[in-house]
């Protein structure tokens, strides 16, 4: 190996440097730069009005809102805790641009968890695990009356499982196993959870704050979190697209992940039905848009049957929620 002047270079030394001009101009590095420029601090949010609003709303409204926000509190902690395999796999694939961007991704997930921790502590007065767990809506109580679909816990079941498999592949070093594991993990994390399942939940909370004319701090927090989430989702779908373009057989892995947890998408699950007075059909329409968006970003063909099932008004889960 030689430089432009013909000087011999040690390849081992050259390999210690990862930045290239192409990488710095590339889409992942652009996401990293956006993340750095748009850093925000949870402590800058004013929750004074939220605290006053909490005092004036009814007990039914409180329990409805908590059904959603407590799920976010648990979810943001889970995704913070489950991101390491993706970083390890990016390193194993030699994608320094992905690792660089993921450094901001992990920080942002921790910050989102911090936001929900602070909001529940200051506004609701709950923080300790025993205090918040009693408001967590149990998934086993969400049932499909037709018996066709099973509602599972993709966040707390699929992510740890796909994460363990990906971490093992990254340590073993087989390139194809790492790529396949990355596609499965990212399809579940960025595509399914962040990119489709949770999007209506953000809108449910934002619509609730508008409907009640309350909780401006919560709404502002959601606005800032969504700005970050857009980068997270499109990082994952772009990474999947790159891997699928390299090996088109990986497209089937995305569909397998979505198929395994199809039940969670075709109807609204317990926490998404917790707030009374919202137009629930709207969120199913939007879910289709988010699903089609993710498929477009990954460069794969949407599953038309899944779309029909999401839009089918006959498929409507019964939610027999029992908190705690």
């Amino acid at each position: 190996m030689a430089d432009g002047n013909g000087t011999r270079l040690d390849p081992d030394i050259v390999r210690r440097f990862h930045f290239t001009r192409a990488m710095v101009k590339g889409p992942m590095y652009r996401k990293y730069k956006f993340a750095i420029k748009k850093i925000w601090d949870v402590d800058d949010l004013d929750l004074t009005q939220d605290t006053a609003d909490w005092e004036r709303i009814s007990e039914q409204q409180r329990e409805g809102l908590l059904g959603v926000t407590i799920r976010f509190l648990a979810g943001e902690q889970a995704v913070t805790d489950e991101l390491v395999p993706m970083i390890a796999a990016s390193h194993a694939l030699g994608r320094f641009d992905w690792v660089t961007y993921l450094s901001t991704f992990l920080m942002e997930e921790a910050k989102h968890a911090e936001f929900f921790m602070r909001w529940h502590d200051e506004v609701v007065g709950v923080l300790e695990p025993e205090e918040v767990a009693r408001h967590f809506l149990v998934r086993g109580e969400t049932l499909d009356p037709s018996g066709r679909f099973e509602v599972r816990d993709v966040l707390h079941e699929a992510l740890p499982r796909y994460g363990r498999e990906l971490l093992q592949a990254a340590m073993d070093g087989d390139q194809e196993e790492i790529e396949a594991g990355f596609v499965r993990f990212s399809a579940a994390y960025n595509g399914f959870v962040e990119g489709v399942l949770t999007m209506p939940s953000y809108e449910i909370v934002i619509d609730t704050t508008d409907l009640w004319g309350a909780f401006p701090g919560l709404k502002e927090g959601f606005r800032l979190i969504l700005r970050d989430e857009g980068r997270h989702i499109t990082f994952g779908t772009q990474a999947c697209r790159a891997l699928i373009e390299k090996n088109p057989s990986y497209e089937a892995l995305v569909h397998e992940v979505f198929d395994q947890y199809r039940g969670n998408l075709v109807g609204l699950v317990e926490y998404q039905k917790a707030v009374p007075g919202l137009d629930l059909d709207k969120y199913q329409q939007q879910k289709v848009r988010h699903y089609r968006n993710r498929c477009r970003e990954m460069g794969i063909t949407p599953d038309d049957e899944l779309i029909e099932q999401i839009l089918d008004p006959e498929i409507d889960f019964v939610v027999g929620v029992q908190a705690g």
Partner: protein
Amino acid sequence: MVACQYECLEAGCGATIVAADEEALVDAVQQHMADRHGSFELEDVIIDMSTEVDEGKEEER
């Protein structure tokens, strides 16, 4: 500056939103989402899936 466009994938929509540049496109798509669907779109989703516009395309169709 190159004009750019974004196709809305909301069920039953399929509108193509066109704007003079990326920043204007983000604003125009958000306006479309609010007016037509009572919703919003993520900024990175709009930017990543926008494409350069064909000559003579209308603002929105």
